[in-house]
C-alpha cells in the first residue's frame, strides 16, 4: 500500500520532502497496490518520469539563493504559493515578446490571461488528494480539468504529455501520492481582461 501522509504546512513539509525524494517513507512492498491499483514499483517509475519531464520547473516555486534561482524544496510540487499575491502583469509593448513569468516560475501572463501552476501534492483540500488516477489521466488526455472541467492553460504542455502511455501516467500519479501533502490553495486563473496593468 502506498502511504498517504497526513497534511502539513509548507514549513513542516521540508523534512518529509527529503524522505519523499529518496522514496524512503516506509517503502511499501512492491507487489502491494493501493485503491487505484498503484504500486511502489509504479511510484518509483513515476519519480523518474517527474524528475525528467520538467514537472518541477513550474510546479515547484523558485527562490533566489546566492547561487541564483533554485527550487524551494519545502514547497516541492505544491504550485504557485497562495501567499504570493501577484500584481497585474506588466503590459508588453508591441513586438515579439508575448509571455511574462513570475520570479517563482509559477505564474504566467500571456494572451490567455494569467495561469498559476497547480498543487500536485496529495493534500485533500488544495492538491490532488481527492483525485483518482482516472481523474489524473482524464485531465492529461483531454486537456480539461478532470476530463470535463475548464481547459488546462499554458504553459502546461498538454500536447506533449498526451504522448505518455497509460502506464506512465499511472506511475506519475503513484509518485505524486507519495509526496508530503502541502496545504497551498493556488489562485484561480485570471481572465485576459484583468491580467495586465495599464501601459505607462
Amino acid at each position, binding site marked *: 500500500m502506498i502511504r498517504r501522509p497526513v497534511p502539513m504546512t509548507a514549513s513542516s513539509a521540508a523534512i518529509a520532502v527529503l524522505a519523499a525524494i529518496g522514496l524512503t517513507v516506509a517503502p511499501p512492498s512492491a507487489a502491494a497496490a493501493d485503491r487505484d491499483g498503484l504500486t511502489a514499483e509504479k511510484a518509483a517509475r513515476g519519480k523518474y518520469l517527474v524528475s525528467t519531464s520538467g514537472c518541477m520547473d513550474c510546479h515547484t516555486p523558485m527562490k533566489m539563493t546566492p547561487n541564483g534561482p533554485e527550487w524551494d524544496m519545502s514547497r516541492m510540487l505544491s504550485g504557485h504559493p497562495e501567499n504570493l499575491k501577484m500584481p497585474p502583469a506588466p503590459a508588453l509593448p508591441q513586438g515579439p515578446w508575448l509571455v511574462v513569468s513570475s520570479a517563482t516560475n509559477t505564474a504566467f501572463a500571456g494572451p490567455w490571461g494569467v495561469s498559476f501552476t497547480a498543487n500536485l501534492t496529495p493534500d485533500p483540500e488544495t492538491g490532488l488528494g*481527492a483525485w483518482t488516477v*482516472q481523474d489524473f489521466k*482524464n485531465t492529461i488526455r483531454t486537456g480539461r480539468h478532470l476530463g*470535463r472541467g*475548464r481547459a488546462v492553460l499554458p504553459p502546461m504542455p498538454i500536447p506533449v504529455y498526451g504522448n505518455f502511455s497509460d502506464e506512465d501516467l499511472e506511475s506519475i500519479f503513484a509518485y505524486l501520492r507519495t509526496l508530503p501533502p502541502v496545504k497551498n490553495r493556488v489562485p*484561480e486563473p485570471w*481572465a485576459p481582461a484583468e491580467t495586465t496593468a495599464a501601459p505607462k
Partner: protein
Amino acid sequence: MKPVALALLLAAATATSAAELPEHLRDTGLAMGHVQDDPAIAAFSPQYPLWSDGAEKRRWVRLPPGASIDASRPDAWQFPVGTRLWKEFSVAGRPVETRYMERQADGSWRFATYVWTEDGRDAVLAPERGTVVTLPQGAHYQVPGRGDCLACHGGARVPVLGFGALQLSPDRDPLAPHARTPSAAADGPKAAASVDLPALVARGWLRGLPPALLARPPRIAADSPVERAALGYLHGNCAQCHHAGDGRVPVRLNLEQSAADPAKSHADALRSMVGAPSRYRPPGFGDDARVVVPGDFAASVLTTRMQSRHARVQMPPLGTERPDAEGLALVYHWITHDLPTRKEPRP
C-alpha cells in the same frame, strides 16, 4: 460506476474509429421523420432536462426485442446490450444534430453525433473531434466531439442521462424549466406511446423496479414547490458530475436526487450547498466563498458559475454558450425567497 468501468468506457470511446460507426443516422435504426415505425423505439422526455441554449430536443430509446432494463437499483438502471438512445437538437425549427449512444457487447458504450444537411433529408456522422455548423441566421452551433460526450456521460452514475426513475416519474414537476412532453402533433402519431415509468413497466421494459415506486411515483422531497423544481433543475443539469458515487468530480457537492431515498438525497444536497465552503473561489469572493448563501444570490458561487459563460468559470463547463435565464430565475427565487424563510435551520 466503478473507476475501472469508467476507464473501460473511456478506452472504448477513444478506440472506436469513425469507420465502425454508421455514416448516416438512418443506419443507426432511427427513421428520419417524425414517425418511428419500429415498435421497439419509444419517445421519452425527462422532467428535468439539460439546458442546451434553448435548442428544442426530442429523444428516443430502443431496446433489443425481448430485452429489459434492470431497474432493481432505482437510481442506477442497468441497460441491456444493444440499447440505443438518440437525442435530436433543433434550432428555429430546423434539426441540426442528433446524438447517439449504443451499448456494446462488452458492456461499454459508444457515442456519436450526426449533423443534419440543410434540406433536412439526411444526417451524416460528425468528425470525431466535433465540428461547427453555421445556422441560416449566421449563428455558429458547436457540435461536440466524441470525447466531449464523455465529459458528462463518462463520470455519471449511469452513462444514460435523463432516462431513469425520477426523470420519468408520472408525478411530473409543473415548475420544471424547459420540460416538454412528446405529443402526437409534434412528434407523430406514435408519440402518444411516449414512455413514463408505468408505460415502461407495461411494455415489459423494466424488471425489478420496486413496486413502491409505482404506488408512489418518485418525487423530490422538497420543502416547497420552488425548492422541488430548483433541486430538480440542479439534478438534471449538474448531477452527472456532482454526485456521491464513483466517477464524480472530487468536490463535496452532491446535487443528485434519488428516487429510492428522496429524503436523504434532499438533505445531502442541501448540506453540500447551503452555507458550504466552496473549493472554487471566483475573483472577488475572498477566502470565505460559499456554494449557496441563503438570501444572497450574488454571493453564492453556485449561481455565479451558472451565470458565467467565461470558459474558466462557467458551469456546466461545456455544451452551452448562453446562460439559462429561466433556470437562473428559478434558482434565484429559491435562494432569495425560499431559503431565508425556512422554519427549521438547515445544515
